[in-house]
């Protein structure tokens, strides 16, 4: 204590320094001995100490009585609020006839530093206008961390301390300063001020009453300062939930929030405070969303309940406002200056986002690393621990000087090569730009809402009207189209153009982690580049990309990400395993939306893994966090895809659950095709595909990595078995017969073979002599496969994708058909001799997603009979039936069958219509058109399922987001 210390000022210049202490306790036996010791050790004299015990069930009353004497302890019921308890203490002081200038309030979990009171009094002496003084609160038991140095409240009701989270006291705060309020723990207040303001408000039983009191005091013209030299250690027992009282209940958050809202609304001096209440309502919604997003639904509900509790008692609020207004004397600006700045809530929002981003980046540190770290922690003498240490040391040493980005890029051959590969992929994908269609792809609709309405409606006015649900991949496409400037064509182009680089990225991530799981050193980046490029080209060289088959392309892009997420099941931390479960579930649902067989195969692989796990690790059944996540991942998929899954089964379109997304018919691969990675006769030259299976078989040779390579082969075998089983099935749809879509199995077999090769190479010992030459040869051959594929892609990968498809239907009819669903066009192809087939074109023709709906719709026998009648002996009645079915034109595209055409020419009610091509024949139905027969019932089941899907997507997104530090902090408390 220096000579300049105000405490050394002459007594005469100082005001009254007589102090009474009121200590409020409730079940504080844990802390009381220390608190009482601290109180006893105060350097400044204390006139009287009164303890108020609010019905403690532990030994608190006895401890207090022992230390202070029975007379000094007031015992009140446990339901007594903090304000009431304080009043009881003051009453006892009055009874004892004590009339001190100051009252020092302490909690049973706040232990004052011996100099605390002295410093507070000195502060008061320094600033004679101060009526209320607060100490620096530091964390107990750490004693170092700063908790509060005066508090204020933000516009959203947040308690603001102005400190960083976990900030240490390093003497950075030394000057007393004016604040809005100080915590009641350690608050030194003039008795008359306390009485004048009516004490603490009973509306705020335990939390937040200090803020309200401070605000009231400030409004009444009193001055509150915080004295950093006075230190009180505070356990914040009630706030942290360490102590439960009948007043806090289980919902401390509710109480805190309620107090904050009440304080804001009761003390706001603004005339438009009801608007403030509305703003707080919106804020509550935002806060709730935030809490839901970090998986804290309890707190979200607390927030809501707090708001409802405050606004549902407007009388209490108005009464509180009246009393406050009556006492307010200070000008508004002074008080406003003590409140938190307006921008502070936004700053906190930004902090929350950056927290999430940090968590996302941290979650990128892979499973292999964490397993190793966990192993090292478990057994510090292990090999893993030594290696980790070694790597850390190496990384420290490798801190190279910070060169420019361009220089680093150019001096890194991998980066350059990667860039070249991605560039080549983008060049190869050039034909996917624009409004495209292909043998496997219908053109995209014109408007962004078309996909939404296709997804959301339970009845489609397509063909003759159908209740078959839209394929599931329409939802992600609709989202993408909405994001990409409301352009479905852009969404299709984006999927096709970006799918290949995106799967390259995913494969890179997966192979890197898989390599590290297999061997400590992991795969080198050349090898990863080879594997990732080869995988990324699978959908291209297979021919799926070139035909515009969105389903398999979409799945191929996401499969490595799915596999990467599934590796999370092996994470040492249970929380991460659960995150991995939801993430895997979401990705699996996305993959299954393009290639529905993915779910079936995943279930098969999961089953095998579970059987193996239970056989090899007998204790695993007891650990819910081991087998639960994979189960959750599988169960999530049917829930997310329910609006498609269930209605499809109900409306006889169950075959769709086995078909890949895209136009039928699919060139189904046979066994050889599957091994070579080709969709039958599509794609790059087949002999390029020979390399992979051969190398994968050779990958079994190295002993070191034989087990992981065998795992890859098991996956390939499962896929092959599934393919063999499913390939024997024929799905008879209304118009076509087709085997199930084997696109996903093809991808999986190829992915498994690539992984096998990458892992197998890791097991190769450093070769010498001939072996070295042989390996060099193999490497050359291996490189030839992706290089050849990439070259083929760049030269003529997408030549089947075209701008528009000529339907052979005159343009004016197409225009007319867009007027409404009743302006349908019946298109009849073929000849009488070889059979006729009919299709119906409505609106803007069959667009992406609609073809599956039409394909899976059962044949309308009545309508087929109608067409048969028209083609053989048309009658006017049949023409009437056409009009009733919403058909405006009948078209026989070139070459039209003469007999049918002549018969239709001769039919009353059909007026010949012109067509550019003379061999195309067309008629207009000269009858009033009606769309009545097209309409169908709304399905409440599907609406319910859509709602379920929406909620499930949100829930899964929340559940698969990484845990932030905040959330973890909370869970640790």
């Amino acid at each position, binding site marked *: 204590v220096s000579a300049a210390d105000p405490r050394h000022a002459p007594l005469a210049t100082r005001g009254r320094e007589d102090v009474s202490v009121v200590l409020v306790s409730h079940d504080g036996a844990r802390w009381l001995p220390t608190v009482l010791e601290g109180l006893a050790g105060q350097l400044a004299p204390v006139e009287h100490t009164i303890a108020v015990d609010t019905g403690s069930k532990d030994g608190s009353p006895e401890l207090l009585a022992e230390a202070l004497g029975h007379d000094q302890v007031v015992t009140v019921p446990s339901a007594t609020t903090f304000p009431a308890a304080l009043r009881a203490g003051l009453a006892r002081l009055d009874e004892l006839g004590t009339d001190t200038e100051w009252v020092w309030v302490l909690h049973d979990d706040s232990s004052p530093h011996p100099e605390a009171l002295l410093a507070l009094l000195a502060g008061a002496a320094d600033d004679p206008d101060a009526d209320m003084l607060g100490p620096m609160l530091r964390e107990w038991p750490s004693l170092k961390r700063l908790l509060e140095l005066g508090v204020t409240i933000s516009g959203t009701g947040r308690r603001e301390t102005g400190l960083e989270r976990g900030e240490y006291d390093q003497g950075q705060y030394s000057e007393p300063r004016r604040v809005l309020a100080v915590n009641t723990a350690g608050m030194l207040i003039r008795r008359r001020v306390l009485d004048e303001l009516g004490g603490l408000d009973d509306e705020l039983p335990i939390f937040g009453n200090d803020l309200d009191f401070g605000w009231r005091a400030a409004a009444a013209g009193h001055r509150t300062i915080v004295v950093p030299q006075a230190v009180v250690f505070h356990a914040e027992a009630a706030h942290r939930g360490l102590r439960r009282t009948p007043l806090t209940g289980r919902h401390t958050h509710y109480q805190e929030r309620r107090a904050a809202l009440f304080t804001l609304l009761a003390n706001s001096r603004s005339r438009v405070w009801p608007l403030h209440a509305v703003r707080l309502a919106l804020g509550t919604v935002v806060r709730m969303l935030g809490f839901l997003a970090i998986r804290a639904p309890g707190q979200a509900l607390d927030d809501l309940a707090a708001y409802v509790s405050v606004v549902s008692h407007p009388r209490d609020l108005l009464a509180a406002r009246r009393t406050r207004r009556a006492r307010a004397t200070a000008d508004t600006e002074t008080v406003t200056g003590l409140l938190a700045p307006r921008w502070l809530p936004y700053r906190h929002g930004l902090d929350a986002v950056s927290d999430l981003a940090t968590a996302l980046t941290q979650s990128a540190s892979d499973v292999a690393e964490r397993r190793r770290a966990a192993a090292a922690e478990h057994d510090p003498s292990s090999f893993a621990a030594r290696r980790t240490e070694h790597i850390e040391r190496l990384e420290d040493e490798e801190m190279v000087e910070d060169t420019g980005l361009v220089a680093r890029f150019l001096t890194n051959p991998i980066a350059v090569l990667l860039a070249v590969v991605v560039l080549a992929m983008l060049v190869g994908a050039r034909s996917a730009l624009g409004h495209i269609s292909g043998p496997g792809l219908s053109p995209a609709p014109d408007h962004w809402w078309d996909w939404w309405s296709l997804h959301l409606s339970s009845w489609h006015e397509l*063909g003759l009207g159908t209740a078959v649900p839209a394929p599931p991949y329409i939802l992600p496409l609709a989202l993408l189209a909405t994001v990409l400037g409301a352009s479905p064509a852009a969404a299709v182009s984006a999927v096709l153009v970006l799918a290949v680089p995106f799967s390259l990225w995913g494969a890179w991530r997966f192979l890197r982690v898989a390599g590290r799981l297999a061997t400590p050193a992991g795969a080198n980046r050349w090898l990863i580049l080879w594997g990732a490029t080869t995988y990324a080209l699978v959908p291209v060289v297979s021919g799926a990309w070139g035909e515009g088959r969105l389903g398999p392309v979409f799945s191929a892009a996401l499969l490595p990400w799915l596999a990467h997420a599934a590796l999370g099941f092996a994470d040492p931390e249970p929380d991460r395993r659960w995150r991995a479960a939801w993430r895997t579930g979401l990705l699996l649902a996305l993959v299954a939306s393009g290639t529905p067989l993915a779910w079936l195969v995943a279930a098969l692989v999961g089953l095998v893994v579970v059987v193996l796990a239970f056989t090899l690790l007998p204790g695993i059944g007891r650990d819910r966090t081991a087998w639960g996540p994979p189960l959750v991942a599988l169960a999530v998929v049917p829930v997310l895809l329910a609006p498609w899954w269930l209605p499809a089964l109900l409306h006889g379109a169950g075959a769709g659950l086995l078909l890949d997304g895209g136009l039928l*018919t699919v*060139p*189904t*691969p*046979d*066994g*050889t095709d599957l*091994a070579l990675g080709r969709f*039958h006769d599509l794609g790059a030259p087949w002999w390029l595909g020979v390399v992979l299976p051969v190398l994968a078989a050779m990958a*079994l040779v190295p*002993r070191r990595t*034989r087990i992981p390579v*065998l795992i890859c*082969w098991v996956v390939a*075998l499962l896929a*092959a078995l599934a*393919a*063999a089983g499913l*390939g*024997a099935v*024929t799905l008879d749809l*209304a*118009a*076509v*017969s087709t085997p199930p879509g*084997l696109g996903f199995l093809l991808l999986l077999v190829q992915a498994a073979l690539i992984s096998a090769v990458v892992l197998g190479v890791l097991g190769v010992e450093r070769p010498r002599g001939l072996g070295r030459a042989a390996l060099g040869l193999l490497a050359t051959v291996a490189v030839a496969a992706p290089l050849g594929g990439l070259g083929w892609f760049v030269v003529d990968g997408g030549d089947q994708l075209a701008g528009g498809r000529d339907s052979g239907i005159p343009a004016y009819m197409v225009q007319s058909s867009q007027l409404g669903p009743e302006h349908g066009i019946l*298109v009849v*192809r*073929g*000849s*009488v*001799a*070889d*059979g*006729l*087939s*009919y*299709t119906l074109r409505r609106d803007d023709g069959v667009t992406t997603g*609609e*073809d599956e709906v*039409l*394909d899976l719709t059962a*044949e*309308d026998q009545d309508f*087929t009979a109608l067409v*048969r009648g028209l*083609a*053989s*002996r048309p009658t006017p009645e049949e023409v009437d039936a056409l009009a009733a079915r919403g058909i405006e034109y009948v078209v026989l595209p070139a070459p039209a069958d003469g007999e*049918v*055409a*002549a018969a239709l*020419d*001769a*039919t*009353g009610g*059909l007026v*010949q219509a012109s067509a550019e091509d*003379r061999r195309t024949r067309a008629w207009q139905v000269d009858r009033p058109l009606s769309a009545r027969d097209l309409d169908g019932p709304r399905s409440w089941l599907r609406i319910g399922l859509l709602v379920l899907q929406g909620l499930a997507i949100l829930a899964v997104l929340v559940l698969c987001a990484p845990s932030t530090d905040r959330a973890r902090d909370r869970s640790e408390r």
Partner: protein
Amino acid sequence: MRRRPGADVVIAVVLPIACALALLLLSPDRGQPEGASPVETPLTTASLVCPAALPGTGADLLGVSTLGVDPGTKVSGDVQVGLGAEAGPLRVRTGRVAAAQAGTGPVVVTGTDEPAPGLVAGRSQSAPLAAVDCAPPVADQWFTGVGAGATHDSVLELVNPNAGPAIADITVRSPTGVLDVPALRGVSVPGNASQLLDLGQVVPRQAELSLEVHTSRGRLAVHVVDSYDELGSGTRAQDWLPAQPEPATSNVLLGVAKGPGERTLVLANPGADEVRATIQVVTPTSAFAPSGVEPIRVAPDSTETVSLDDVLKQAAKDGATGLLVESTGPVTATLRQVVDGDLSLLAPAPALDSTTAVVVPTGTKQLLLGGPDAVGVATVTAYAANGKQLATQRVELAPNSGADVELPDDASLVTLTPERTSVRAAVLLTGTGTAVVPLRELVLTGLVPDVRPGIP
């Protein structure tokens, strides 16, 4: 001592093999449902079109009858006779010929349900004798040997029996090739109306022409009236020129009249290659190549005319009934004969496999059979207009032979049932002139196509 291989080695060998075996099992069925053939069902509606009466004197007779779907059972019912709104009902019965009073214009005979299968009608005129079979509208027809000049002129009559408009495209071939005649391209005929095209005005030319009539829109019945002015005689002979359904490499033209006269064979080659045609004379017992007749060369897309006056003079006397024209490529043919001052036109008769019938006027007539492709029998029955069966005769048929069946003068309906062979037939009418009516296959059934939903 050899070490046993470890489990991992065994699995490493087994797995790829198992994989390969599983893949070998995969051979998906990529077959697609094929369109099936159409199904034949009894005709429920049939239309025949009779051309307008010839502008000459003499009784105009329009007879209608029906065979029914099964020749064994008798059917009766009303058919509509007339063009468009003028149509009126006419009761027809199997085996009888109902005479229609329908004016001189073109007449459409429409039968629905029972009378529709095997509906048959014929129009004839007595002086000079002319007769035509009323045929259903067909999409493509060939007319060979039409004229567009002063002495030989043809008038094309297009009749649209239906409500919607119809369009015909007519290709004209001349000895020098296809003529570009804009007036004959896209000839539009409104519903329930007819249109006459006088070739002499549309494409005036002194040459033997051939027409290929293609109906591109709707349905049209096409008839050609050929008029021939034998040089110097001053009289104009007229008759209907029968249509040929399609070009063929073997054409049998039946109906050579007895006696001398002018006989001209016109061939047309619609193909792109030159065709060489040979001629044989058909008699009831044989077919022989007449001496002194060179093979005829017909240039692509053109017509060729050969005078057979001399060749057939003796043969007709000896009982020749027709000509067999065999060619290296499909051709169409017509034999125009002017005997005793009357014109009659012979077009290739189609091969008949099943029971058929023809309505003919009373008078002297004979049924000429020819061109059987196997040994078989044909039964010919003649009925009077009132349904009375006048005569029936079984005729043995063998390749390279034919028959010449005399028919009763009162016969109005002639039925022919070939068995075990197909045969070609024509009725040769004689009296106040000559007329030839080839028999055609009757339409008993309609084709109902196989219809299924297509790939959207």
